[in-house]
Structures are given as C-alpha cells and as structure tokens.
C-alpha cells in the first residue's frame, strides 16, 4: 500500500472516508431516533416510546403494501434472473450475428430515465386496455402485474451484468466433459452449470429484489388501486400522523435486509470457496 499513498495522504483519505460514512449515516441514525420518539417526526424530541413498532402490525394498509411489494419483487426478480441466465448464455457461450445489437438492447434499460420508461409503459397499457375493452369487453387495468413487467425490464441489465462475469470464468470444458459422458444439454445445465452459477444467481436475485422493493418512480405511474410499499409510503409522507409508524417499519426493514444480505453473502462465499477449491485442484477453473 505504501506505493500508492504517502502517510499524509493516507490519513486524509481515511478522514474523507470517515466523513463520507458519517454523511451517509446521519439521516439513517436520525430516522432510527425518530422511530423511538414519542412525538411527530420533527424537532423537538418528545420522549422515548416503542409504541410505533407495536402499531406497525395493527395497520392493515401498511402490511398489505409491504406484502405486495414483496410479491412484486419476488416475481420480478425470479423472472429477471431467469431471463438474465438465458441472455448471459447467449452472449457468452454463443456466437451469432448481431451480437452487438442484442447486447446494446439488453443494456439499454440502464440508461433510460425511469420517468420516461414509466410513462411509456403507462401509455402502452392504456392503449392496450382501450383496445381490449372495445373489441372484447375485457379490461385488464393497471396493477401489480404492470409493475412486475416494468421491474423485470429495469432489473435485467443488472442480472446479466452479475451473471456474465461468473459464466465467463467457468470453463467450457466442464460442460463439454459432461456432454462427453452422455448427459443431455438440460442435464448438463441442471447438474453442472447451474450449481456453479449459484453464487451469481444469488447476487443477481438480491440486486433485482432490492431494486424492485424500493422502486418508486415506475410504480407510481403503474400502480392501480393497490399501492406497493414505496407508493404507499410516498402518499403517507405528506400526512405526518402516520409517519412515525412508517419510520419504525423502515428501521425494521433495514435490520432485516442487513441480516438477509449478510447471510446471502456468507452462503455465496462458502459456495464459491467450495466449488472453487475442488475445481482449482483439478485445474479446471
């Protein structure tokens, strides 16, 4: 490390890092404080209470919103990971004409502003609903399904980006060996490739899930009568009577996600180490 920084520089860098972490966490610590504050989410503080936490479970609208977000995030993440695996395979393991175009298409949702994407989905769905209503009398309407569709699109680049590097590292010779031994393509995939990809699948699932769970911009345009958690939260933000309860929920979500993410990371590392060790010993990875 001495080649990169002098002692003085190191000290200032450490300070900058420390200040940034402080900057990042001040609002969060503040929220944690308010979740125990006996009054409204504003100064001055009024006394300690755990009332808000107990009230969380007494609020059906809040719990439904959380549940809906969890469902939307689960479904859209699973879809995004599945599609991401397919796309990664095509991009890494296959040669085909127009790969550059396909690649650009897969990654373009990364740069489209959510406001534009959200309203374009709104226009599309409104048009399709109008058409359906006229021709068949059926009416789908906006709702959780619309949000899932939107979230899959924006999560897909992230899942591909996470899966591709690992797929690249995995030697093709493993798959070829499996084929030589008589396994079908599907069997090879299921018993050789998929387990090896598992760490990336977990990571990409987590990324997609976090993205979808907290996503507001697109959901705000596509939510029908049933708000997801961010949409619900936004509506309640302006009505401070509920605010402390929402802050309490958020703290709980933070703790739960930290545990979840740490747990997933531990699992991922152990799997990587296990397979990495075995295959490295055999000179295959």
């Amino acid at each position, binding site marked *: 490390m001495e080649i990169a920084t002098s002692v003085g520089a190191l000290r200032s860098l450490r300070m900058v890092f420390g200040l940034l972490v402080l900057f990042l966490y001040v609002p969060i610590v503040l929220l944690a404080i308010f979740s125990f504050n006996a009054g409204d989410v504003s100064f001055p503080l009024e006394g300690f209470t755990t009332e808000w936490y107990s009230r969380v479970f007494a609020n059906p609208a809040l719990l439904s919103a959380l549940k809906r977000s969890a469902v939307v995030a689960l479904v859209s993440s699973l879809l995004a990971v599945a*599609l991401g695996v*397919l796309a990664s395979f095509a991009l890494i393991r296959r040669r085909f004409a127009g790969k550059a175009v396909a690649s650009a298409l897969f990654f373009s949702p990364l740069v489209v*502003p959510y*406001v*534009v994407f959200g309203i374009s989905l709104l226009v599309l769905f409104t048009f399709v609903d109008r058409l359906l209503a006229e021709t068949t009398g059926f009416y789908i309407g906006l709702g959780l399904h619309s949000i899932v569709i939107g979230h899959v699109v924006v999560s897909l680049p992230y899942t591909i980006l996470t899966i591709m590097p690992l797929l690249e590292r995995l030697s093709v010779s493993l798959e070829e060996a499996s084929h030589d031994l008589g396994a079908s393509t599907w069997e090879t995939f299921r018993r050789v490739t998929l387990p090896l990809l598992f760490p990336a699948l977990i990571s990409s699932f987590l990324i997609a899930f976090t993205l979808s769970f907290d996503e507001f*911009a697109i959901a705000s345009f596509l939510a029908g009568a049933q708000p997801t958690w961010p949409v619900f939260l936004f509506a309640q933000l302006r009505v401070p009577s509920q605010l402390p309860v929402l802050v309490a929920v958020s703290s709980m979500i933070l703790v739960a996600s930290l545990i979840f993410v740490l747990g997933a990371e531990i699992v991922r590392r152990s799997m990587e180490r296990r397979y990495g060790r075995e295959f490295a010993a055999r000179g295959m990875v």
Partner: protein
Amino acid sequence: MATLEAASSRREWRRRERRGTVGLLSGPLLWLLLFFVTPVAFIAAYSVGAVSLFPTDSSVISLDDWGRFLGGGSIYMGLFWKSIRMSLTVSVVVVLLAYPIGYFLALCTKKRKYVLLLLIIAPFLTSYLLRVLAWKVMLGEHGVVNSLLFSLHIRSPDDPITWLLYSQFTVMLVLAYVWVPFVALPIFVSLDNLDRSLLEAASDLGSSRWRAFVRITLPLSLPGVLAAFLFVFIPTIGEFVTPLLVGGTSGYMYGNAIQDLFTRGLDWQTGSVLALFLLLVVAGLMALFGRFVQVRSVAA
C-alpha cells in the same frame, strides 16, 4: 475409436447448440421488444399525433408539438437546460467525492475491504423516500442544522438559513447523497483492477507517489471515472422524485414537467414530446461516450 465417437457427438452437440441459441435469446429479447421497445415506439407515435387516447388530444399527425418545443422560447426547453445544469453540477461533485472513496477502498485497505464496501452499500437497504424525509427534517428552518446554529449563537432564531430546504441546493444535495455510494463502486472496480506492478515500477524508477498517481493511476482509471460520471448524469436529468419532495418551486426539474403533464395536465402529447426528447439526448450521450464506458467495468 473412443475419440472418434467423442468427436462426432461433440459436433452433434454443437449443431444442437446453434438451434438452442435462438431458444436462449428469444425469451429475453421478446420481453424487451414487447415491454421496452414497443412502449418507447408508442411514445414516439404519441408525440406526433399518430396515436391519441383522449378527446383533448389532436388526432392529426403533425410535428407541431415538436416545433413548439424545439423552436425558440418554449418554457420547457429552458427547464431542460436548467435540469442539465443541475445534473452536471451534481455529477461533477459526486465524482469528485467518490474518487477518493474508491481510491481508498481499492488501494489503501487490504483486510477490511469488503466490510467497508458493505458499510457504504448498507444505506440502500433503507427506503430512499424516508432518507429524503430525514433530510427534510434536518434542513428545515427549525430543523437540526438551524437548531444547531441557534444553540451555538451563530445565527439568531429569527434568522434561520432558509435556502437549505425547498431550493435547488436541496435537490442537488439530496441527489449527491444518494449517488455518491453508487458512483464509488465503478471507480473502486477500475482502481481495484489496476496493475500494482506499474506503480512498483514507477517507484523503482524514482518517481514520487504523486507523480505516479497523476501519470499512471489517474489516466488508467479515467474510463471508470467517465463511466461513473455518465452513470449519475443520465438518470439525474430526468429525476422527479427528489424535486417533488424537497425542491419547492425553484427546484422544479424537467422530469417533474413530464410527470405533471401525464398525471395532471392531461396533455399526453406534450408530455410524450418531452419524454422522447430526453430519451434521444440520453441515446446521443451514450452513442458519443459509450465506447469509453465498458459496461462490464460497472459491474461490482
């Protein structure tokens, strides 16, 4: 004999593979075509009047709305430039702040690298909206910052700092707050991939650490920096949530105009023009600078 059989079965497999490629691609491609390309095409069609959904829309195909927007003096064009200015400021500040962070993580820590990285990422597990709310509480006229100033007698309670909240400054501050961790990642990745032996060689040849930084590290990390810059610049031009919460009247941005026109103004045509214009600008930026951005370097 065994090798011949193995070779022919491999060829057979490769042939099946090629057919499989179509199967692989069809899922994701179809999804994107249906739910990404088509909606954007709809917006384009809407903006010229080829599609209309409401009685108030004109059903004549014309470039009138585009003309009014691009022609001189449209208020929305001025708003666009205002948003560009704000995004540019935010992006530059964010990159300047994130670079030392990425540098620190990549080149100065060994054992606790990933723990520190996790520390930076953890705030994303709280709701973004509530973090913005916390800032609102901190920056108000009777919020944390002003209360602190009162108690330290730097300012009197009758004279709080008013521009902390509901201003352009607020929007830029909150956006920077949200984006710095995001941006530190690609910078970290590109610095992490730096070949240390180059720095060792420079040191062996008698170069000072500062010179080595300026002439080796910085140039090599520039693609990562550019990627990071675009990574924050592009989404913030169209940002509307933060201005809605803390922008007041002066923090109103281009994204807010789009959202308003679609959700309240019932003017989906002008809204489509604005939306498509933003998309074209973004596409142009990517076309110009995309070759500097290796998308892989963004992956953490």
